[in-house]
């Protein structure tokens, strides 16, 4: 049904307002009527005065409106200002601080053991000698005292070298635990570095087989990242190994130029793996054994980085190839493998290698 348009000019506006008020009045009357009916029914049914039957309880639960007291008449912070005597230390403690105080005083809460351990750890660092390290075993459970835990582990290897008193500079705060121990010989992993002076030769060797090991110039620490860590090049890793283990150390998977007949008996994969552990990743071995081309690529990409010259190979390239291919006696793939298994020196120049393969192919 279409409504008549009402222009909202002055007088009409008042009419509209009047209309609004009318509607409003109707609504309010409706509400009042509703209430009346409700009350009347309650009266006639007899439940209107039901809540007023018990005068006594009415007085008891009357609404309280006094200051300092809540609606039920209860005082809010009645016990706040009282003091309690601690049964342990006999001191007077404020009520709200009583429970935390008891926790610390009796040594039974969660935090109290932590704090006690922390105190013990700091005392150990400052004053105890190495023989007392046994006590620090308890601290191994505490993830907080990092230095104590690592100290216990490294104890035996460092006994001959430095005394733990070097760590006197250790400051006992959470955040500084790592930074304060740069001189600490026991520092193992925290700064992602190991001091190579602290490791025995066997340890160095085992360490270098699995980790990068490149020594940082300013901290004298070895990198503990993997052999493929992006921060250091293979060249650096090589240099470190030579420096630490001596020039004769077998560190690379590439074979020597010297032909060794018995190397043929070694299964390809195993030999490769054992060599490869010195230098680099598992990435090399499967591809080496897989195809000649792949191994060529890998060798090519890696070998140019090595600085060490391979004079023997360079000079004897013809002779070496001859001996190798003669010794290899097989297809190109086999000679590749024999090439890689026999070689013990780390360096091979790229051009000589590619020339070898060209000849073989």
């Amino acid at each position, binding site marked *: 049904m279409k409504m008549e348009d009402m222009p*909202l000019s002055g007088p009409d506006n008042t009419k509209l307002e009047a209309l*609004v008020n009318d*509607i409003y009045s109707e*609504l309010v*009357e409706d509400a009042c009527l509703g*209430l*009346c009916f409700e*009350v009347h029914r309650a*009266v006639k049914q007899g439940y*209107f005065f039901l809540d007023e039957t018990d005068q006594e309880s009415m007085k008891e639960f009357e609404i309280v409106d006094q200051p300092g007291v809540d609606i039920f008449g209860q005082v809010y912070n009645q016990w706040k200002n009282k003091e309690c005597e601690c049964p342990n230390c006999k001191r007077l403690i404020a009520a709200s601080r009583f429970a935390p105080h008891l926790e610390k005083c009796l040594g039974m809460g969660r935090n109290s053991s932590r704090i006690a351990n922390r105190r013990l750890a700091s005392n150990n660092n400052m004053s105890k000698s190495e023989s007392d390290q046994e006590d620090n075993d308890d601290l191994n459970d505490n993830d907080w005292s990092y230095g104590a835990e690592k100290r216990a582990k490294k104890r035996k290897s460092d006994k001959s070298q430095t005394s733990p008193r070097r760590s006197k500079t250790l400051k006992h705060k959470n955040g500084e635990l790592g930074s304060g121990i740069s001189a600490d010989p026991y520092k193992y992993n925290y700064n992602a570095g190991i001091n190579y002076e602290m490791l025995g030769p066997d340890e160095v060797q085992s360490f270098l087989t699995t980790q990068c090991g490149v020594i940082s110039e300013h901290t004298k620490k070895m990198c503990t990242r993997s052999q493929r860590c992006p921060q250091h090049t293979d060249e650096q890793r090589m240099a470190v190994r030579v420096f630490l283990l001596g020039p004769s150390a077998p560190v690379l998977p590439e074979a020597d130029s010297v032909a060794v007949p018995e190397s043929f008996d070694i299964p390809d994969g195993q030999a490769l793996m054992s060599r490869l552990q010195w230098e680099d990743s598992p990435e090399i071995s499967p591809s080496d054994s897989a195809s000649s081309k792949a191994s060529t690529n890998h060798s090519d990409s890696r070998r140019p980085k090595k600085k060490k010259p391979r004079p023997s190979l360079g000079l004897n390239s013809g002779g070496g190839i001859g001996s190798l291919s003669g010794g290899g006696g097989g297809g190109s793939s086999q000679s590749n493998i024999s090439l890689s298994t026999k070689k013990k020196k780390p360096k091979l120049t790229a051009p000589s290698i590619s020339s070898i393969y060209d000849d073989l192919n």
Partner: protein
Amino acid sequence: MNKESRLKATINQRLTELGERERLKELLRAKLTECGWKDQMKAHCKEVIREKGLEHVTVEDLVVEITPKGRALVPDSVKKELLQRIRAFLAQHAA
């Protein structure tokens, strides 16, 4: 006059048809209970009943006593809000 009454009738019809009237009623009742108006009125009722006697009170008595007081005791905020809503409805559906 005819126009006005016609307009009024139309609007009332619209209100009822669209369910707005019911909504406004419920809104008003809720607001009045919330602000304590209902308890006030009930207390007043008790007085009236005690006056008239429990057995003989009629609906008419109550209505006569309660309605004027009830109208007067509605808080301003509630009144304003309701007027606002009615005006909005009219603006939307009338002009």
